[in-house]
């Protein structure tokens, strides 16, 4: 009997509670008094303050009215705010230092404010695997190809006046932590004539380099073992190393302040139109023109097709994957469409070690003739070293796992041979990064594809993308907006040499 009555009581209270919930807001609004005498939850206040709630209610009502009025951004459909815009002028695939450099230069050359809409698509905004930030950060003019030398000189000019170019009002000054210590290439008897040839090319292009004999070398750098060195080439100016993260962020900050839109997403496909054309030889070509880029959001299946006029492929080691989405390389073998973009990721290790008796402030970025390189890092006796593995021994590129045995077997003996003080060193840490390795000739590919007329490449730099990024950005912007190269002629670095399989070799690749 008692239970039956209590059950009925609970049912009644429940019913009233339910109705109370619907009625309560208006009720409280009108008189502020709780109609139901007994409160059934312990969380609510004993007394409801009319005026405290009044403020909140008025603000909420004001917001609702503002949203409902025309001109507000509110819509009943929930749109993901991270999606890129539906329509833009230029899409840059890849948010590394080259991509942001192109974005900055495009906005700089646009002519009128807001004249160009640029979107940079980057799949990983933490840059955990990006080549730009994992780089050793060196810049040198000691190349064998005049185009590379001129690119480095132009980039050094840019970096010298970086605050003039990339300074944003009311923000911190750009500090690249540039160390002007120069590069030094050592050559054995076999490579001495190549070094001398390169020296002549470099001097002709305007680089400040000097040649040193072994005795001069021993005098200048007494910590070095020069027994098997025939000749050394030493950079005097505009060479050294910088902090790649600062450069990337400087470009990014300036480009964002100029109105470039950044999108975190991955390019998964393109929509293009095709036109058939026949060459003089009777070969049928399929000319494609990109209409829109499909950008997929991270960790989701949602994608946005971005209509655009021009696409810049600055995706670094993954550029070939992007190019394949357009059919570059998927055609029949002996045709133009069958030639893939010869850029693939190659893993390179960088080891940080500490040596208390090592060379001092004047340590250059030394590159031995065996391929081992090292440079000073900071002022505390730390150094960075690495080596490009031989052709057959390339490490697996599936992840960025470091092989410490490589240091023990291949790098340390050479280091100890070159600098006797390095016999006693302690490896502090190491990391790995990808080179966007151009398998044809290890030089950058800058220019449009012959079959896809609105896709421009700025990739394949094989380890010297960072140092060329300002100049390459300017060159690509000139190509897109002016129709051709105006300051530096990089036509020899175009896709033509890939199509004709004529490598433009660079002998000084580290």
């Amino acid at each position, binding site marked *: 009997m008692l239970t039956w009555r209590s059950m009925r009581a609970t049912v009644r209270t429940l019913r009233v509670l339910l109705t109370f919930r619907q009625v309560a807001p208006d009720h409280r609004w009108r008189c502020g008094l709780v109609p139901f005498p007994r409160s059934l939850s312990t969380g609510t206040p004993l007394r409801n303050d009319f005026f405290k709630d009044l403020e909140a209610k008025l603000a909420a009502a004001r917001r609702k009215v503002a949203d409902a009025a025309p001109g507000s951004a509110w819509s009943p459909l929930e749109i993901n705010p991270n999606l890129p815009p539906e329509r833009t002028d230029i899409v840059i695939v890849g948010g590394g230092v080259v991509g942001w450099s192109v974005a900055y230069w495009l906005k700089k050359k646009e002519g009128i*404010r807001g004249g160009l809409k640029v979107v940079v698509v980057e799949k990983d905004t933490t840059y955990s695997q990006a080549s730009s930030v994992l780089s050793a950060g060196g810049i040198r003019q000691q190349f064998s190809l005049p185009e590379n030398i001129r690119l480095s000189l132009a980039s050094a000019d840019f970096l*010298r006046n970086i605050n*003039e170019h990339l300074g944003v*009002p*009311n*923000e*911190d000054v750009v500090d690249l*932590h*540039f*160390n*002007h*210590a*120069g590069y030094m290439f050592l050559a054995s008897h076999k490579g001495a004539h190549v070094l001398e040839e390169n020296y002549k090319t470099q001097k002709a292009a305007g680089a*400040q380099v000097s040649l040193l004999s072994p005795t001069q070398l021993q005098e*200048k750098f007494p910590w070095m073992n020069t027994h098997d060195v025939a000749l050394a080439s030493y950079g*005097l*100016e*505009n060479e*050294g190393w910088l902090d790649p993260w600062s450069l990337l962020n400087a470009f990014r900050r300036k480009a964002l302040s100029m109105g470039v839109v950044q999108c975190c997403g991955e390019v998964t496909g393109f929509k293009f139109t095709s036109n058939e054309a026949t060459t003089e030889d009777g070969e049928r070509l399929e000319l494609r023109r990109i209409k829109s880029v499909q950008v997929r959001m991270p960790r989701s299946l949602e994608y946005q097709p971005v209509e655009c006029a021009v696409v810049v492929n600055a995706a670094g080691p993954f550029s070939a994957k992007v190019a394949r989405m357009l059919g570059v390389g998927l055609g029949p073998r002996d045709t133009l469409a069958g030639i893939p973009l010869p850029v693939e990721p190659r893993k390179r290790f960088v080891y940080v070690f500490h040596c208390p008796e090592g060379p*001092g*402030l*004047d340590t250059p970025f030394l590159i031995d003739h065996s391929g081992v390189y090292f440079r000073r890092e900071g*002022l505390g006796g730390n150094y960075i070293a690495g080596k490009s593995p031989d052709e057959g021994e390339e490490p697996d590129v599936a992840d960025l796992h470091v092989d410490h045995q490589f240091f023990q077997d291949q790098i340390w003996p050479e280091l100890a041979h070159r600098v006797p003080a390095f016999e006693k060193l302690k490896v502090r840490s190491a990391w790995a990064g990808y080179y966007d390795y151009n398998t044809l000739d290890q030089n950058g590919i800058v220019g449009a594809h012959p079959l896809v007329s609105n896709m421009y490449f700025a990739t394949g730099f094989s380890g010297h993308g960072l140092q060329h990024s300002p100049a390459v950005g300017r060159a690509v912007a000139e190509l897109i907006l002016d129709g051709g190269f105006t300051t530096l002629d990089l036509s020899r670095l175009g896709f033509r040499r890939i199509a004709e399989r004529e490598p433009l070799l660079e002998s000084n690749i580290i």
Partner: protein
Amino acid sequence: RPWSSSPASPPPMHRRLLLILTQRFSDFEVLLRWKSRMKRRKLLRKNHLFFLKCSILFACLLCVLRFVGHSEWFRADHKGKFNWDFLNHKDTPLEEVDMSYTIINYTGLSNLGTKAQRSLRTLSVRGCSEVDDWFLARLHVFQDSLEELDISHCPQITPGGLAALRNLKGLRRLDVSSLPRISTPGLVIILLEEMLPQCEVIASGYDHSLKPEEVEEERSQG
């Protein structure tokens, strides 16, 4: 800006107002950018004309010159008039140049380099606000002849630029006092002395004492 980690104090009221207006209105942004561009252009123009032959603006130079074989210095006297006799020595090589507290920068140095490459023995750029690491890197053109260098009180020099002095093997006296951007002066001085063994490194104006926290740590440990 209030969340910036730099130790500089916030700018005065009128400047802050100007910056707020710049962020809201594009006209202000254009005007500010134009103003900084004009300032840069003026600086560049003045530097271009530093040390050029027979330039009228030579007389307005604030620098002081001394030629080989002569013992008197050519400088502007208190009225601002320059002794034009130096033009008689147009072909004599320059030996000592004192450019303290001027606006000399990299471009100006390029002009000096072409004239005085083989003979310059003393160079002073004390307190020059535009002298930065790239300027020091350019000093390699004087590597055979330069014996004394004074780069004290220059606000833009960092240890990365001091590494560029490695080429000046003839240097006997180097003054690196009171460089604000060197955070570990003691270490840098030792490294400089190692890099240039025959050079006397003068570095005053640095506080080598331990910081208060470090002294307390020692006290608690010892």
